């Protein structure tokens, strides 16, 4: 059996003000798998993803990436590992003021030397890779446009293009379509799933829409109150399970915002004035 790409054993994450966001999460992810994570807002999915993409260190338990414990990495090693894990966020992935070409080429930043990276801002390097990636996401004509002139859906596709340029072994997508027009959401999810299948990348997605999860993913992991609730193939997921998963979930749509604020209070994020 190949080494699983991710192996979480009893992973927990507690923030400074004793907010337990993750508790005893154990999970094995094989290389090349596609998994959809579902659960209500604030259940801990985003924190889990941030632990997986090595932004946060688990406060308890172990995380193994390709069999190696990542707990005590030096910053340079961390950088190298991060390059192999690509992440798409719900929003604000990109720097609005830069042109699309620079945002897409940012995928190379883990590989390029500092000098090359800085020079690329003046004169874009390896532009062909950006052209290719944009063609795959269907935005070839936007190469030199200013990123903030694009719509939300288009910006997410640019983020996917950047991911393709980065060419990671793992794709983590944290609610990639929640801020996008529902009619475009399916297109983006399809893009991600295709990229995963064609290039053999592991794909872990956080989805708000249970429907999209059940339709496109062969494995569903549900998170409830910081713990794994169930881990099944879509056929085995019943309406009753879903009811219990989302029971007591408040219709509070500002939950992601509350989450951000909790994190900055906990000192885990620098206070951002732009939630």
């Amino acid at each position, binding site marked *: 059996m190949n080494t699983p790409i991710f192996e979480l054993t009893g992973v927990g994450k507690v923030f400074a003000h004793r907010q337990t966001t993750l508790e005893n999460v154990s999970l094995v992810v094989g290389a090349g798998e596609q998994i959809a994570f579902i659960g209500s807002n604030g259940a801990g999915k985003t924190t889990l993803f*941030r632990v997986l*993409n*090595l*932004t*946060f*260190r688990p406060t308890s338990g172990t995380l193994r990436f390709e069999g190696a414990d990542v707990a*005590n*990495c*030096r*910053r*340079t*090693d*961390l*950088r*190298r590992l*991060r*390059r*192999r*894990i*690509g*992440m798409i*966020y719900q*929003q*604000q*992935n*990109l*720097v*609005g*003021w*830069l042109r699309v070409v*620079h945002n897409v080429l*940012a*995928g190379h*930043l*883990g*590989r*390029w030397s*500092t000098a090359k*990276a*800085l020079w690329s*801002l003046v004169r874009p390097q390896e532009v062909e890779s950006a052209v290719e990636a944009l063609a795959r996401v269907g935005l070839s004509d936007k190469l030199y446009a200013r990123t903030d002139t694009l719509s939300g859906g288009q910006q997410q596709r640019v*983020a996917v293009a*950047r991911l393709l340029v*980065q060419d990671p072994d793992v794709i983590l997508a944290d609610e990639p379509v929640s801020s996008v027009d529902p009619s475009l959401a399916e297109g983006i999810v399809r893009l991600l799933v295709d990229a995963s299948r064609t290039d053999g990348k592991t794909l872990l997605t956080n989805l708000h829409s249970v429907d999209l999860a059940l339709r496109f993913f062969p494995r569903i992991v549900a998170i409830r109150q910081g713990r794994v609730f169930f881990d099944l193939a879509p056929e085995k997921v019943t309406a009753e399970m879903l009811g219990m998963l989302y029971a007591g979930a408040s219709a509070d749509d500002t939950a992601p915002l509350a989450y951000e604020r909790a994190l900055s209070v906990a000192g*885990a*994020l*620098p206070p*951002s*004035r*732009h939630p």
Partner: protein
Amino acid sequence: MEPPNGTMTQATLPVPTDGARSRWSWALTAGISALVVWSALGTRVEPSTILSVETLLAVVQYIARAFPPDLSSSFLAEVGSGVIETLAISVSGTFVAIVTGACLAVFAARTVVFGSIGDDGNTRFWLRALLTSTYLAARTMLSLLRTVPEMVWALLFVFAVGLGPFPGVLALGVHTAGVLGKLFSEVFEDVSSRPLEALQSCGASRITMFAYGVLPQALPQCIAYSLYRWEVSIRAAAILGFVGAGGLGQQIHLAINLFFEHQLLTLVAAIYVTVTIVDALSTALRRSLR
């Protein structure tokens, strides 16, 4: 107008709720009044003096003596070159200030120096200590640069490199670097951190995170601040000549000491025109940035 806000401290005065609020306002008003009265006594200024006829008369007489302004072509040519030199000093000074200020600002912005989101990896202790001391040194330097008035800097630089516009450029550059550096560092710190997190997850280093994430977001506001400071610089450039640092200031110094009131009037008018032009340019450029 964009007055910069915020200083190093984050403390505020406690604001009492409702009932006590009017007491607080009264205390504040009383305090301010006391301050004003004390100051009036100290500067020997009484309302009667300011509004007195003698003062008004003295001022009006002085202005009347200065008319008509000296408009001879030879003098106007001198004034013209003074204007050009003053403009050159202000532009060069602002340029030096932007470069120096930006470099210092990079080290004075907490989020840039220590800039990782979340897990830092195991940074070695001595590296962390080095970063902290660099940060503190940069902040102190900026504070020092901007507290010493431009005039004093000008005098110091005149001692070092001699008379002329050059020490003026240096003085302006150094002082404004202190101001701009602080403003820039605040902009750097205020930038949205989510794109930075995304860059970090691509594997970007701290330097590239700054270049791709912080700088593009900060640029519009930094440019606006720089243009605003240019308006301040042109006024300063006009007077640095007092201490020998070139520009119209030098001519004014001469005119005052030799009691050439007509020439003084022309020079003052020239300053007015120059300042107005720069103000207008700066506002127009700032507007085109929006």
